[in-house]
C-alpha cells in the first residue's frame, strides 16, 4: 500500500501532509505527557518487531501472498498515540532506507498506515470488545480480528480514495481512475484483511499466553469526577472519537473531489450561461459522481453511523467509565 512519490496529485499530497503533520504533532504532545524515557526503547524495539513482522508473508491462495501491516497489532499493544508515532517511524525508515514510499508521499502513506490504520484498529477493538465480552476468551479474539480487518480495509479505502481523487482533479495526469482503483484496492484488501485478522488474533493470543506483561494495554485512570473526565476516561468514548477523527480526516479529500466534479445539470447551466444562485443550505455530503463513489460513500457512512451509534449506546448503557 506504499504510495511512491509522483503518483498522487500535488494538492492531494499537500492535504495529506498537512493532516499527517497536525496529527503527529498532537500525538507527540499527548505522548510526551503520558510516557517517560523508559517507554522510548520499548516502543523502538516493538517498532523493529513490527517492521520485521511485515516481512512475514502469508499465503492467500493461488500462489499469491500478502504481508502483515501490524498497525492494529501495535495500537492494541501500546495504545493509539504511541502506535501513531511508531508506525510513522517505521514508514520513515521504509521511505528513506528502502525506497518504499517517498518524501512527498510520506504524508499520505502516514495518513493511511500510521494514522488511519492504528486509529481504526484501536477504535474498533475498544468498541467491539464490550459487546463480545460475554464470549469469554473468544470474545477478545473476535474483537481483535474485526479490528485488524477493519484497520486494513479502511486504510486501503482511504488509499483508493486518494488515488481516485488525484485522478479526478488532475484530469488523469496523476493517480488511478476510481473505477479501477476502488474495486481493485478494496477487493484485494478485503482478502488481505482476513489474513491480517487471523495473524493478529494468533499473535495477540500467543503473546498474552507467553508474555502477558508485553500486552500493557493503556490503563485509563480516573483522575477527577465530572462529565469531562468521565468522557476522557471512557474507552468507548475515546474509541468513538478515534473513529470520528478518521472520518474528519477523510472530509477534506471528499470536498476536494466534489468541488472539482460538475454534474450534468451544472454543465448544462454553464453551457446555457445560467447562473446558479447561492444555496441557502448546502449538504456536507453528496452521493458522489459515479457508482463506485456512491458505493464507497455509502459503505463508509454506514460504518461510521453504526460505530458511533454503538459507542453512544454503550456509553449510556454501561455508565460513563465504559469498562
Amino acid at each position, binding site marked *: 500500500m506504499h504510495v*511512491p*512519490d*509522483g*503518483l498522487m496529485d*500535488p494538492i492531494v*499530497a499537500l492535504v495529506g501532509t498537512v493532516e499527517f503533520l497536525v496529527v503527529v504533532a498532537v500525538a*507527540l504532545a499527548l505522548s*510526551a505527557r503520558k510516557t517517560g*524515557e*523508559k517507554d*522510548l*526503547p*520499548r516502543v*523502538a524495539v*516493538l*517498532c*523493529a*518487531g513490527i*517492521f*520485521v513482522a511485515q*516481512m*512475514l508473508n*502469508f*499465503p*492467500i*491462495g*493461488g500462489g499469491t*501472498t500478502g504481508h502483515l501491516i501490524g498497525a492494529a497489532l501495535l495500537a492494541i499493544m501500546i495504545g493509539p498515540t504511541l502506535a501513531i*508515532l*511508531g508506525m510513522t*517511524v517505521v514508514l*520513515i*525508515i521504509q521511505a*528513506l*532506507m*528502502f*525506497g*518504499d514510499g*517517498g*518524501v*512527498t*508521499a510520506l504524508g499520505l502513506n502516514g495518513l493511511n498506515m500510521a494514522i488511519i490504520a492504528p486509529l481504526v484498529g484501536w477504535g474498533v477493538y475498544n468498541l467491539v470488545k464490550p459487546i463480545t465480552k460475554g464470549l469469554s476468551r473468544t470474545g477478545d479474539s473476535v474483537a481483535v480480528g474485526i479490528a485488524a480487518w477493519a484497520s486494513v480495509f479502511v486504510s486501503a479505502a482511504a488509499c483508493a480514495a486518494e488515488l481516485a481523487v488525484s*485522478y479526478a482533479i488532475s484530469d*488523469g*495526469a*496523476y493517480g*488511478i*481512475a476510481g473505477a*479501477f482503483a476502488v474495486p481493485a484496492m478494496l477487493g484485494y484488501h478485503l482478502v488481505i484483511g482476513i*489474513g491480517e485478522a*487471523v*495473524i*493478529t488474533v*494468533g*499473535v495477540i493470543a*500467543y*503473546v498474552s499466553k*507467553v*508474555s502477558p506483561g*508485553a500486552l500493557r494495554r493503556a490503563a485509563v485512570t480516573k483522575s477527577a469526577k465530572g462529565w469531562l473526565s468521565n468522557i476522557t476516561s471512557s474507552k468507548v468514548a475515546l474509541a468513538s472519537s478515534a473513529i470520528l477523527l478518521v472520518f474528519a480526516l477523510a472530509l477534506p479529500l471528499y470536498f476536494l473531489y466534489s468541488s472539482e466534479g460538475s454534474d450534468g445539470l451544472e454543465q448544462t447551466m454553464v453551457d446555457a450561461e445560467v447562473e446558479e444562485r447561492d444555496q441557502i443550505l448546502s449538504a456536507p455530503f453528496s452521493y458522489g459522481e459515479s457508482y463506485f463513489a456512491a458505493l464507497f460513500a455509502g459503505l463508509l457512512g454506514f460504518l461510521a453511523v453504526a460505530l458511533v451509534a454503538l459507542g453512544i449506546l454503550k456509553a449510556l448503557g454501561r455508565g460513563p467509565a465504559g469498562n
Partner: protein
Amino acid sequence: MPMIVGHVRGHSHILPDLDEHSKSHWFGRLDSRAKIVGIFSFVVVCALLTKVELITASLVLAVAIAAASGAPVRSLAKAYAAAFPFMLLASVSVFLFAGIERGLEMLGRTSACVIALLALASGTGTFGLFAGLRRLRVPATISTLLMLTYRYILVVSEEFFRMRTARKARGFGGGRSLLDKYALNTISFTAGTVLVRATARADRVYEALRCRGFSGDITVWRTSSLGRSDLVFMAVLLLSSGLLAAIQTGWVQW
C-alpha cells in the same frame, strides 16, 4: 552515537558495504543536512513535473546523482527493483485509462524520485542521515525512535532469519491459502515470538542506554559545519530543482 554505529557494524549483514562506502567517497563525506535539503527539494519538484521533456531531464539528473554518489550499482538496482512493482502497477493502470504517454510519464516521474532517494540513502551513513534530520529540527522523540528502531531492526531481523531457517528445517513450506490453519498458526507464532523477544529485550536496552547516559534524547556527538563543497552541492540541486519547477509552471519559457 559512534557507540551505536559500532554495534550496527557487528550486525551489518543487511547493509554491509554502504556505511563503509559512504565514508570513503566524497558524496558520503558531505554534510548530511546539505544532502537532505538538496535531495528532498529535488524529489518534491520531480513529483510535480508533468511535461515529458522535464520528466526526462529529471530522470537523467537523478541517474547522474546516483552515479555521482558512487553507491554500488548492484545494491541500488536491487533496491529499485524492490520498489518497482507498485510503480509499474500504477503506470499500467494509468496507461489503461489515460494512454501510453501518461503511463510512461508516471513511470519516469516515480523512478526519478525513487532513484534520487535511494542515492541519498545508499550514499549516506544511516545514523548520519538520522542525525542530519535531528539537526534539521525533527522532534527528538521521532529522531531517537528512528535511531533506536533502525538499530533494532538489524538485531530483530537477524533473530527472525534464524527462526525462519529453523522453521524451514522442520519442514514448513509457507502454506497454500488462507484456509491453511496450520500454516497461519505457524506464521502467527513466528510473529508472536518476534514481538515477545523484542519486548523482553526492551528492558535490557533501556538499562544499557541508561548506563550510557541516555535521558530521552540521543545527542549527536560528532558535529560538522557546512563547508564549501556542501554549499556547492546544495546550491546545484536547489538551482536545478528551481529551474525544473520554473519551466513546469511556465515562469521560464523553454
